[in-house]
C-alpha cells in the first residue's frame, strides 16, 4: 500500500510543514470515502458486454441465419474486463489455452459454473485436429455430466491470409454412439489476449444437452461433425482470394467504426465435413433439491419445483403458463459477509427449465432466484409486471 508521501511527492517533500501534511492527509482521507458500490462494476461489465455484442452483430445487416445459432450460455463470457486478471493468471500459471479463457474468462474473480471445468480440471484433455477447407478446429477438452456435454476447441483460418482472431465460429453436430443427435445447448467464444499475433485463433466451447440418454453409460462415446467454419478476413489491397469451398458475406459489423478494427473485411464461410470421435466419462454427481415454491406476479403463477445442481451449473424446473419464456438472475447471498453474487440464467423453452451458470455444487445456504418474462432474443418484456422472486435454502 503506497504511503501518503509516495502518493503525493509533489506536495509532501521531506521539508513539508506539519500543516501541509495535515491538509494533504485530510484531503486524502476525504477522497478515499468515494468507493464504488458493489453493483457498479457488475452493471458496467454487463453494459460493455452488451456493447461488444451489439458491435458484433448489426441488426441492420442482412446477416446469415447461422449467426443466430451461436450464443446463449452467455454469462459475461466476453470476459473482456478481466483480461488484466487473465494476464496475471497466465503469468502465474504458464500458458493459458484459449479454450480455458472461453470456459473460465475470469478465474478467481467471477466464478461461473462452466468455468469449473477449468478451475477444477474436470473432464478429459484432448488434442484432436481436423480441417475444413483450410480452417482448423482443434478439440482440447471435453466434459460430460448427467445434463450436458461441453466440448472446448480452438478455431483458426487458412494461413497466408489475415484473420480477425475474435470472429471464428463453427457449425457442428454432436451424436452419441447410437447416432442420436445431442441438441445444441449453448456456447461462447473468446479471442486471444496473448497469442493473436503468432497464432490467429480463438477459443470456443459448445454445450450439448444429453438428458435423452437413458440409461446413461459410464463412458460416453461422441462423434462431432464439423459442417462449416467461419471467420472474418481482413482484406488488403490485392484482389481477395476466392475459393470454391468458401462463401463470402459482407462484414458490415466489422467495419471501420467497429472496435474490432478498421479496414475492409468480409465474412468467409468454409464448407466441408470433418468428423472427430472421442470418449469422455460421465460425471454423475448431481444434487436434486426439492423447492416447491409458488409465486404469483402480474396475474401469473409460477411454481419452482426443484433445483438440479451439477458441478458446472444449476437448473431449475418450473411449472406454470409460459414457464419457458423467462430469463432471470440467480442471486446468492453469502451468509456473514453481506455479499451477493449474481449469475445470469436463461430459459429452455422446450423443457420449462431455467439454467443458471452458477457454481453451486458445494454451496449450502440461502438462494434467491428472480425471474423476468423477456423475449430471449430481444430482451424485451413479454409480460407486464413481475419479477417472480423465489427465496429458498440449499441444504
Amino acid at each position, binding site marked *: 500500500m503506497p504511503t501518503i508521501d509516495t502518493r503525493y511527492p509533489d506536495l509532501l517533500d521531506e521539508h513539508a510543514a506539519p500543516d501541509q501534511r495535515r491538509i494533504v492527509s485530510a484531503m486524502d482521507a476525504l477522497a478515499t470515502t468515494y468507493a464504488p458500490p458493489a453493483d457498479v462494476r457488475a452493471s458496467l461489465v454487463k453494459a460493455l458486454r452488451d456493447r461488444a455484442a451489439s458491435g458484433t452483430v448489426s441488426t441492420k445487416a442482412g446477416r446469415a441465419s447461422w449467426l443466430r445459432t451461436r450464443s446463449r450460455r452467455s454469462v459475461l463470457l466476453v470476459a473482456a474486463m478481466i483480461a488484466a486478471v487473465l494476464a496475471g493468471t*497466465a503469468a502465474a500459471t504458464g500458458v493459458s489455452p484459449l479454450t480455458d479463457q472461453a470456459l473460465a474468462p475470469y478465474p478467481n474473480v467471477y466464478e461461473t459454473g462452466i468455468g469449473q471445468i477449468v478451475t477444477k480440471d474436470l473432464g478429459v484433455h484432448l488434442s484432436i485436429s481436423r480441417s475444413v477447407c483450410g480452417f482448423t478446429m482443434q478439440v482440447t477438452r471435453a466434459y460430460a455430466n448427467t445434463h450436458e456435454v461441453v466440448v472446448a476447441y480452438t478455431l483458426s483460418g487458412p494461413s497466408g491470409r489475415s484473420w480477425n482472431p475474435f470472429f471464428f465460429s463453427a457449425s457442428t453436430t454432436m451424436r452419441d454412439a447410437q447416432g442420436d443427435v445431442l441438441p445444441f445447448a449453448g456456447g461462447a467464444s473468446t*479471442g486471444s489476449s496473448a497469442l493473436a499475433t503468432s497464432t490467429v485463433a480463438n477459443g470456443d466451447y459448445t454445450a450439448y444437452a444429453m438428458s435423452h440418454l437413458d440409461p446413461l453409460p459410464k463412458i460416453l462415446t461422441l462423434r462431432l461433425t464439423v459442417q462449416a467454419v467461419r471467420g472474418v478476413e481482413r482484406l488488403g489491397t490485392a484482389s481477395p482470394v476466392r475459393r470454391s469451398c468458401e462463401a463470402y458475406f459482407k462484414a458490415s459489423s466489422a467495419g471501420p467504426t467497429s472496435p474490432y478494427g478498421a479496414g475492409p473485411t468480409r465474412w468467409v464461410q468454409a464448407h466441408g465435413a470433418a468428423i472427430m470421435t472421442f470418449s469422455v466419462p460421465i460425471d454423475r454427481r448431481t444434487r436434486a433439491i426439492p423447492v416447491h415454491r409458488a409465486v404469483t406476479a402480474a396475474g401469473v403463477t409460477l411454481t419452482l419445483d426443484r433445483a438440479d445442481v451439477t458441478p458446472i451449473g444449476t437448473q431449475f424446473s418450473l411449472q406454470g403458463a409460459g414457464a419457458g419464456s423467462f430469463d432471470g438472475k440467480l442471486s446468492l447471498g453469502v451468509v456473514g459477509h453481506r455479499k451477493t453474487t449474481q449469475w445470469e440464467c436463461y430459459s429452455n423453452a422446450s423443457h420449462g427449465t431455467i439454467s443458471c451458470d452458477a457454481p453451486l455444487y458445494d454451496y449450502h445456504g440461502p438462494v434467491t432466484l428472480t425471474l423476468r418474462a423477456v423475449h430471449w432474443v430481444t430482451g424485451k418484456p413479454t409480460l407486464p409486471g413481475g419479477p417472480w422472486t423465489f427465496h429458498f435454502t440449499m441444504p
Partner: protein
Amino acid sequence: MPVITALPLRTRAASTGEEAHHIPESRAGVITFEAVYECYLDRVYAYLRARSGSVEDAADLTQQVFLQAFEGFSRFRGGDDQIPAWLFRIVRNLLSNHWRRHRATVTWDVVPEALQPRTEYAVDVGLLRHEALLPLRALLRALKPNTQELLALRFVAQLTVPEIAAVIGKSEAATSKQLSRALSRLKEHYHAHD
C-alpha cells in the same frame, strides 16, 4: 440473444514509461482495454462521485465513460502514459454535459462509507471519519468550480500534475501553482476550524 464474442483483448503495444507499471500488461506486453478498465474504474468512479450529485449519477456517468472509452480505444494513438489524460478528458466532457442537462452544482457531496457498510467496524470508522471531514467538505464546497475540479483530479482521481495539466489544457507550471494556491487557501481555513 446476440452472438457472443470477446472484446479486443489486445490493441496496442505498451511503452516502457513509468505509467506502464500501473497498468497490468498481458504476456505479450500489450496494454489492453480491460487493463485500463481495471486500473481506472475505482478512480473514475470516485472522481465522478465527488463531482456529481449522487451515487446513481456517478454510477451512470462511470458507465458512460467506459463505454465511450471502449468505443474510442482502438483509435487512441497516444502512449500508455497518456491514458489517464485521455480517459479523464472523457470524464470531464461527460460531466460537463451532465451538469448542463441537470443544472446541478453539487460537488464534494457527503458519501460516507456508512452508506455501504461492510462490517460494524467499518460503520464506526466511516462515521468517525465522516464527522472529522465535515468542515473540510464545507470548505471545498465554497471553492470555485475549477478549483474543486483541480483538487478532485489530484486527490480523488490521483492524477499527477502533468496528467492534470493535460486534462485541463494548462501548462504544468500553471497547474502546479494553482494546486499549491488552492491547498494553501484550504489549509488556512481548515486550521481556523480547530
